[in-house]
Each structure stands twice: as structure tokens, then as C-alpha cells.
């Protein structure tokens, strides 16, 4: 038996013997033979390698890690360089007390975890400007698909009858989201129309519209509010997939009338991890409360009238509603939602504003430097992602070579276009490195830039209401306090 299997399996040899005796069999083999029908039993042992010890495995994992070349990423598309606060890494991500726990079906024994998820919902509601948020979905793309399905399922009887089954999707949504939504639409007989929200007018055959904000080119388009009212005028529901960090600075989609706001919380201190896990968020209006997919934590009271939390509205969920459920979601991303909410708890309103401002400022500095080098800026209102067009004669695949030699990944859209997206973990040195790459491609020298807190966005985009107002986001900013809070929960 492998060294690790003796650690993994609970009973030792003596206990095993005692247990078999109580069961009334002579051996494990006898019990298994009695239990599993003979005709389906495997003949031999699985063809899987012999066990490594823990020490050997960890060395092997180090080798595998070394085979990954981790470049600084400016690719964006919903995944950004972020910093996991060490206090959260050690006391949540590396703490069995947080990670082994099960879904809080027994609320009384799970108040701490429920509180952390309630913080998540509160944060999402404040930033999106919505009335209701759930406690996470699997990823941004499926969250957008869930929005579509929710709109579809919540259609009025008459609309169902009338076969109102079209859904608009902005062509400037993240490509992976369009991919996922396509698959989901088909099955339910939803007809997807992919187009430019600027020119899309909509009509009575459309029940929903899905847009991205800022869009996949990084643009903070002026027309979001106008688009939403245009759609609403035709009774088309609008879902906005938004970068939650951008909403620390930008006006909330909720305040512009959105029916759903959803997206990823990866950049709230959860590593990219080559794709996940990360918590998607999903916020909507009170009207939809019986249609929301996923778990919702709610406030109630116990028999002694103490405030007590628990999972709310379970009647929406598949384990009760089965084929009539709002969604098939069961396991979601609770631990990652906890991490994301704790990131906001630890940074607080001021810290979050600083982080949002700083990623924006990085974009701004590179945009300015690029323009000075002869690149064209595709759009001048952006949050953290800039859309660059190369000077005549400069091809993005040449830039790619130089960038990769410097261990940078950009997003290349065409031979002459690319986007660069900036995360918290990108440093001033990186910024100057990026400018040096852009300069090298045009055979110039870049002038070094210094980060500051200036903002390129026009006032009309900026939010004026306060966020992170609840005490929980204003209390735990020293590491000792944070540790104690994490321990208390």
C-alpha cells in the first residue's frame, strides 16, 4: 500500500479488522464480492502508475510548474493580473477550515461562511446598483447565458405564445462568452442575433439583449444608458456583463436601468489559474427574485430572535424544483466568492478606489506613450484596456515576437490591431517594459513614464454614489483585524 494511501484512508489495520468483524465478513474482498455484482467487476488492477510519495509528488509538481512559462499578461478578456493579499491566501485559501467545508445546508452551523457570502452579495449589489445578487455562478460566460435563460423563462405568457424568441448579443462581447451563449441558445430554441449595439434597434421578436461593459475592445461606450432605454422601450430586457472593478469608478449599470449585471470577480484577489476557479457574480432586480439562478444567502432570525443567515428561496433550485428549476446550478464558486469579498473587506472603499484608479492609470500611461510613438488609440474612453492600431507598416506579429521575448502577452486582434489590459499586479517597471516593446517595434526609444492617479475618463462616466458603505468594508484593514475576522467567521 502506498505511503499516502495510509494517510488518506482513515481506518488502520486493527480498526479494519474490528469493523469487518462487526459487519460480519472475513475480508474486504468478501464484502466487496457480496456488494458489487460480479458481472460488472473489473478483472485486473487499473492501468495507472504506481503511487508517488508526497515528497516525490511535490517535487514533480515543482517540475511541472517550471515547464509553464508565466509571462505578464495584458490579454484581459475577463482575466487580469491580481494580487492575492497574503493574509487571505494563508487564512482562507490555505486554511482547511475554509476550504473543506460543505454547502451550508445546515445554516446554524455555518453562520461564518454565510456571512462571508452575504458580504459578497452586498458588494455586488452596491457596485452594480442592483437590488439582488446571488452568491456566485461558475464563470462569466455561463453567467451571461444564465441571464439570457432567465429573461427567456420569465417571458410573459403572451410573448411565449407569440414566439418571441430572439436574443441580441453584442459582437463586442468576450468571444468565449459568445461561444458559450451560442450553445445554450440553440437548445431552447432561442435565436441569437450577434451585432453592433450601436446600430441595433430591436423589435418585438427580441426578448433580450446581452452587452459587455467596458466592451471587449476596452471601450466605455457612451451609449449604454441610451441602449438600455431603447431596448426597454421595446420591452427587451438587457443584461450587462461588466468588469466589477471598473464599477468602483464607473456609474453602475443598475443606475442606467440594466435588468441583469453579471461578470467575473477573478480580479478581486483570485489568481488566474489558467482559467479558474473564479466566482462569477449575478445581480438583478427584485422582480426576478423567483427566477434567479444559483444560491442566494438571506437574512432571517432564529427562535431567540437573533439575526441568523441561511440560503434563501431554495424553492427556485434544482434540488426542489427539478426540471422546473431556474437553472441546473448546484456546486458554484463559494470559496472564490469568499476570497473576492474578503479582498474588498480588506482593502475597503479607499483601497478599492486606489486599485481601480491605478489599473486605469496604467492603461492611460501606456495609451499616451503609444500615441507618442505613433500608434493610434482606437477609442479614448477606456477603463483598464486600450485598443491600439499599429502605425503603417508595423505588424502585430512582429510586436508579438518582441513582446514574448520580454515575457509579455498582449491580445492581438488582427495584423494591425491589438488590445492591452492592465491589472493590479502590473508594475511601473512592466509599464515601461511594455512601452519599450512598442517603441522597439517602431524602432524608436520610449520615454520612461511614471504612474500617478490621473484619470482619462470623462466625468459623465464616473459614479458619484458611495460604494462599500457597509461597516464590514470599513473595519478590517489591518492584518491583525483581518485575521481575527477570518478566524471568528
Amino acid at each position, binding site marked *: 500500500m502506498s505511503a499516502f494511501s495510509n494517510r488518506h*484512508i*482513515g481506518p488502520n489495520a486493527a480498526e479494519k479488522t474490528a469493523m469487518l468483524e462487526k459487519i460480519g465478513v472475513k475480508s474486504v474482498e468478501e464484502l466487496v464480492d457480496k456488494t458489487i455484482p460480479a458481472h460488472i467487476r473489473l478483472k485486473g488492477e487499473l492501468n495507472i502508475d504506481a503511487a508517488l510519495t508526497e515528497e516525490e509528488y511535490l517535487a514533480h509538481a515543482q517540475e*511541472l510548474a517550471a515547464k509553464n512559462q508565466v509571462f505578464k499578461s495584458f490579454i484581459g478578456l475577463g*482575466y487580469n493580473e491580481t494580487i492575492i493579499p497574503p493574509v487571505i491566501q494563508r487564512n482562507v485559501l490555505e486554511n482547511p477550515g475554509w476550504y473543506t467545508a460543505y454547502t451550508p445546508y445546515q445554516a446554524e452551523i455555518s453562520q461564518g461562511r454565510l456571512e462571508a457570502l452575504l458580504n459578497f452579495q452586498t458588494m455586488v449589489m452596491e457596485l452594480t446598483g442592483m437590488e439582488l445578487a446571488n452568491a456566485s455562478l*461558475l464563470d462569466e460566460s455561463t453567467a451571461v447565458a444564465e441571464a439570457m435563460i432567465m429573461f427567456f423563462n420569465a417571458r410573459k405568457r403572451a410573448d411565449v405564445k407569440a414566439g418571441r424568441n430572439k436574443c441580441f448579443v453584442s459582437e463586442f462581447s468576450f*468571444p468565449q462568452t459568445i461561444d458559450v451563449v451560442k450553445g445554450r441558445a440553440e*437548445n431552447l430554441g432561442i435565436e441569437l442575433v450577434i451585432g453592433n449595439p450601436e446600430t441595433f434597434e430591436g423589435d418585438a421578436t427580441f426578448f433580450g439583449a446581452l452587452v459587455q461593459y467596458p466592451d471587449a475592445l476596452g471601450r466605455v461606450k457612451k451609449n449604454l444608458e441610451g441602449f438600455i432605454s431603447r431596448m426597454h422601450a421595446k420591452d427587451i430586457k438587457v443584461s450587462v456583463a461588466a468588469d466589477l472593478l471598473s464599477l468602483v469608478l464607473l456609474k453602475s449599470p443598475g443606475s442606467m436601468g440594466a435588468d441583469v449585471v453579471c461578470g467575473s470577480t477573478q480580479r478581486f484577489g483570485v489568481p488566474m489559474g489558467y482559467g479558474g*476557479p473564479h466566482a462569477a457574480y449575478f445581480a438583478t432586480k427584485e422582480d426576478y427574485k423567483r427566477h434567479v439562478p444559483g444560491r442566494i444567502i438571506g437574512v432571517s432570525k432564529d427562535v431567540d430572535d437573533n439575526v441568523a443567515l441561511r440560503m434563501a428561496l431554495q424553492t427556485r433550485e434544482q434540488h426542489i424544483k427539478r426540471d422546473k428549476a431556474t437553472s441546473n446550478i*448546484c456546486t458554484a464558486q463559494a470559496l472564490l466568492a*469568499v476570497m473576492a469579498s474578503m479582498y474588498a473587506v480588506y482593502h475597503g472603499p479607499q483601497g478599492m478606489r486606489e486599485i481601480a484608479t491605478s489599473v486605469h492609470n496604467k492603461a492611460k500611461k501606456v495609451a499616451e506613450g503609444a500615441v507618442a510613438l505613433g500608434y493610434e488609440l482606437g477609442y479614448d474612453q477606456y477603463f483598464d484596456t486600450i485598443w491600439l492600431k499599429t502605425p503603417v507598416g508595423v505588424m502585430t506579429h512582429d510586436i508579438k515576437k518582441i513582446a514574448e521575448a520580454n515575457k509579455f502577452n498582449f491580445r492581438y486582434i488582427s495584423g494591425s490591431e491589438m488590445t492591452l489590459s492592465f491589472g493590479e499586479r502590473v508594475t511601473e517597471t512592466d509599464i515601461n517594459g511594455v512601452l519599450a516593446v512598442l517603441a522597439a517595434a517602431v524602432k524608436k526609444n520610449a520615454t520612461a513614464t511614471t504612474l500617478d492617479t490621473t484619470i482619462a475618463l470623462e466625468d459623465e462616466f464616473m459614479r458619484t454614489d458611495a460604494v462599500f458603505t457597509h461597516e464590514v468594508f470599513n473595519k478590517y484593514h489591518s492584518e491583525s483585524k483581518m485575521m481575527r475576522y477570518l478566524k471568528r467567521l
Partner: protein
Amino acid sequence: MIPLGSCTMKLNAASELMPITFPGFAHMHPFAPLEQAQGYHEMFAQLEKDLCEATGFAAMSLQPNSGAQGEYAGLMVIKAYHEANGDADRKVCLIPSSAHGTNPASAVMAGFEIVVTKCDEMGNIDVEDLKAKAEEHKDRLGALMVTYPSTHGVYEEAIQEITSIIHAHGGQVYMDGANMNAQVGLTNPGNIGADVCHLNLHKTFAIPHGGGGPGMGPIGVAAHLADFLPGSVMLEKAGGSKAINAVSAAPYGSALILMISYAYIKMLGAEGLRHSTEMAIVNANYIKARLSEHYGILYTGKNNTVAHEMILDCRDFKRDAGVEVADIAKRLIDYGFHSPTVSFPVAETLMIEPTESEDKEELDRFCDAMISIRKEIKEIENGHADRENNLLKNAPHTADCIINKDWNYPYSPQEAAYPIEYLKDYKYWVPVRRVDNAFGDRNLICSCPSIESYEMA
């Protein structure tokens, strides 16, 4: 111990988890060029191979981010297969009444029409009913979704017959892999005749549950379905040659935590994997042996054994003592346990799955608690305790209620807080008493209440 039925709460070993914070895994963008992610892809390839071996399948997709997502993906693959065969009409999906709620929900999402099939009094799929329904829908039969061993904790003897019936009628068999912890190394989905199944890596393959996620629900498929595995517009390499659309944003789903399952397999090896399954069965049958003297065990196999989990019958307590299964669940908190699964798959029962990672002492502690609770119920049945005002109905008991409130229950604080010897050393104090769910649903608040509202107490 959290002995949750169907949820496989096994050990999440420290060594399995350590690599997820290695910078070489943590900081990679999902759309970084393939050649930069060689470490990841080497791991994916090996993991796919090992999971294929464990399931008896030909190909694996690591994309789905949960079991339910895997169900959706698997059904979509089946659908694409039928369509490729010119069988676009095969949209009926048979689902036994004992199935987990995600099965019908996923089937609906994938555009199937659901036909529910019955179970017999032994908890097994009613083969006659199944045959009849397969027959009835034979031109439109798309799939059967079946959990194995069943959600009733039994290895159905007729499973191969069942899968043959489906195949004979043109359908594909989707196996829900939530109970794979009772199969690995001893039997497999391929063997029982399934065409697709998902694996809950967060159950069988040691990814921690995280309080409700993350998870990973890769799907394995037989050779004829391999071409349809989900692709990704972001990575050409991903998926089969006739790939269905992506089911997750990232080509390999939550790639980072695949490292955990990979570690689990690497450190157990073939022998350790098999032995883990065997010991999961031993542990379950040990609990059964101890508890069957006090509780009814709802279903057992033909030799009177259970698989890796079992259902404890609590239905009569309602009649005899006014005690509902939820009361037992709450009373277990006073004994320091998170309750087993309540009322799934059968109402007013408990579904217990200990897993191989628990040792005898812990199992005994749990059995002792269950037996002690059974005695408390007997006191009510006997009329020695009140039907409304008793240890179970008032559970759980906080320290606050025991010490600070005027004690006016018909039992002592000692009986409430320390009903059993081991609690002297291990007492867990619950922070709140029984939660009022209905009140909360009527007055839905889902953001942090203001501090003042906490003073309402």
C-alpha cells in the same frame, strides 16, 4: 466528519493542495499561447488518460466546471451525436424518479424532454417500467440518465440490462458520476454500459468543497462520442473534431484545481485508488452494521450490504413522536456533527456517506450520537418526553440559551448540551438557534443588515 450522502467529503490532503499556490500555476492567463503552458498540458494529458482508465472511456473533456455543467455538456454531446446520425429527433430523456435534481434541470437546459421512470420497492429502477417507456419513445429516445450505484446506495444488479434496453432502443446512456467513489478500481461506467459520464472531481477526486464550490465536472465518453467533446473558440486544440460549443469560459475550465485531482491519483496509484473505494464500502457497511440495530436502513443490495452510502429511515418518527428528520439534523449539531443529507433522495430520511477517510473512532462517535438521539426519540414515543417541547424540537442549543436565558425546558441544561461523554472534550458551541427559513423568504434581505438590526435580539 460531515457524513453527507452523495457528497463524498473525503480528505483534502495538504500535499494535494500545496501546488495550487505555486506561482507557475497560479498566475497563468487562460488564453496565453499554448507553448507557454507546457506544464499544464502535460498534466491535462496524464489526467485525461488516468480518468479514462478509471471510467473505462476513450476520451475525456476537462472543461465543465461542476457536475451539473458536466451533465449539460454530456447531454449536448449525445445530442450532437444523434444529430450527426440524422437523429435530430431523439430528444426524449428518461430519468428515474430517484435522480438528483440537477439531472432533470440539465436535461431541460440541453433541450431534452423528460420522461420520469419509476423505482421498485427495493429502490431499484423498475426495469419493466423503463422497458415500457423506452419502447413507447423508441423513435425519439435520446438518452437515459442513471446514477450508479444508485442514489439509494445500491449497486443495481440489473444495470447492464438497463443500459442494453436503452441502446437497443437507439438511446445513449448518461451516467451521473456523483457516486464514482463506489466504483473506482472495482467497476466503471464503461463496464456497466454507459456512453458518457461526468466525474465530480470535488467528490471522488479530492477537490475540497469550499463551502459550495469550486468544483470540476469533466466528462468521459466512449469512442463514438469523442469527436463531439466541447471545443473553445479560444484554443483550437480543445475538444473533438466536431466539437460542440464551449460549455465554460476557459478551455480547461478551472484548470488550477485539476492539480488537486491529479495529485490524488498520482499519490494513490492504481492500488490506492482501488483500496480507497473498498474502504469507502467498508466504512459505510460498518455504520450500517451499527445503526441497523436502531434505525431502519431503507435499501440494501441482495446480500444485505450497502454500497458506499445508505439511507436511514426516519419516516415513522413523525407519526410516533412528532419528530421530523430536520429535528434530528438540528439535534446532531448539539452533538457536534453536521447532519448527513436530509430528505434526499427520499423525503424524511437521512443519507449517510462516510467516505474512506474517516477512521473507526470517528465513525463510532457518529454512531454513538445517532444511537443516543434514537433514545431521545424513544423517550417521546414512550411519553416520557413532551412531543412539542423536547431535546430535538428545541435543538440546537446555544451556550447563550443555556446560560443566559431563564431555563424553563422540561429537561436539564446538561442533557441539552452534554448528552454524551465525548462532548466533555469536543464540545462545539453553535452560534445561533433554529433558523426561521420562512420568515426570511417572506422578508427577503440579501445584503448585510445594518449593525443596528443586529441589536434586534
